[in-house]
């Protein structure tokens, strides 16, 4: 039985099943609750928008209209996420639990729940920086991808349903790094295109450790 990753105590040997960063059910529930709350609070005031414009208070009318449009966007996002719950599920397994810079690892993927609906599957191993900084009263996070290593890009039904690929983690790049406001993240990014339906989009974070002393440069 494969173990679940990431986990600091994960032993080095044996296959490891990856967990999606944001499971589809959690995403759909979160967006649905946000859509209910946001629109439930704002839509009772929708009638005030034309009234505000008629009375010459166009600033207030414009502000209200912007919040209503944002609510509509969240509602559509929730619908998209709910439809995505019917998508095939992707399972990713690595051949080992501990990954070091300079190593090559084997990735196995398997789709369950009508994989034939997916017309094109892309899996890539990606490194990115994330920096969080204050912006007014809020905090924003900037993201910058610095390395993308393709694992698979296929339209063949058999290869979409299941397969294996190799990823050579370069030795001249950076290991995973996590500080309170600055992070370097390695993850598998998965995109499955479905015609006339929300695509499969998943991310599986993994921890890449520094190079083993004496390893390849």
């Amino acid at each position, binding site marked *: 039985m494969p173990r679940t990753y990431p986990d600091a105590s994960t032993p080095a040997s044996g296959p490891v099943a990856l967990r999606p960063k944001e499971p589809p059910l959690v995403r759909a529930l979160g967006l649905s609750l946000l859509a209910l709350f946001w629109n439930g609070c704002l839509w009772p005031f929708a009638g005030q928008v034309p009234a505000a414009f008629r009375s010459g208070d166009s600033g207030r009318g414009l502000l209200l209209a912007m919040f209503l449009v944002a609510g509509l966007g969240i509602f559509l996002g929730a619908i998209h996420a709910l439809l995505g719950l019917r998508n095939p599920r992707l399972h990713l397994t690595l051949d080992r639990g501990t990954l070091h810079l300079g190593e090559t690892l084997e990735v196995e993927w398997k789709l369950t729940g009508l994989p034939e609906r997916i017309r094109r599957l892309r899996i890539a191993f990606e490194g990115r920086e*994330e920096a969080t900084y204050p912006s007014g009263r809020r905090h924003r996070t*900037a993201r*910058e991808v610095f390395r993308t290593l393709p694992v698979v890009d296929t339209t063949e039904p058999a290869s979409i349903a299941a397969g294996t690929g190799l990823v050579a983690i370069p030795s*001249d790049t950076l*290991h995973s790094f996590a500080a309170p*406001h600055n992070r370097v993240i390695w993850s598998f990014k998965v995109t499955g295109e479905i015609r006339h339906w929300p695509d499969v989009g998943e991310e599986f974070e993994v921890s890449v450790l520094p190079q083993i002393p004496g390893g390849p440069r």
Partner: protein
Amino acid sequence: VSWLRIKIDGSRTSFQPGEVVAGTADWKLDGPARPGDAVELRLLWFTSGRGTRDAERIATAEFESPAEEDHRPFRFELPRSPYSFEGRLITLTWALEAAIAGKSLGRLELTVSPTGEPVRLG
């Protein structure tokens, strides 16, 4: 302080992860140190760039009863990570920093990586 000098054996500033950084700290203070004051030499890393600064002190050497003009040896073992790196958003720098009574006396920047150069992202 009149002056402070951090001298590393072999005059190096680039190190492999896990290596030992050893040398001497020399200083001349403006006057005699107050009783109980110590000169601290800290091994640390800090980030700069777009994000809010993060920093971590890895080790500290405390030089007690410092004379007005003095020099003391130090020795630190570097951890295996993080490497020094330069990205589009984040730069991580290693340093040795000296301080007395909470006041910084000076800093020497180091590079810690398998190649001796900061890892360049992007």
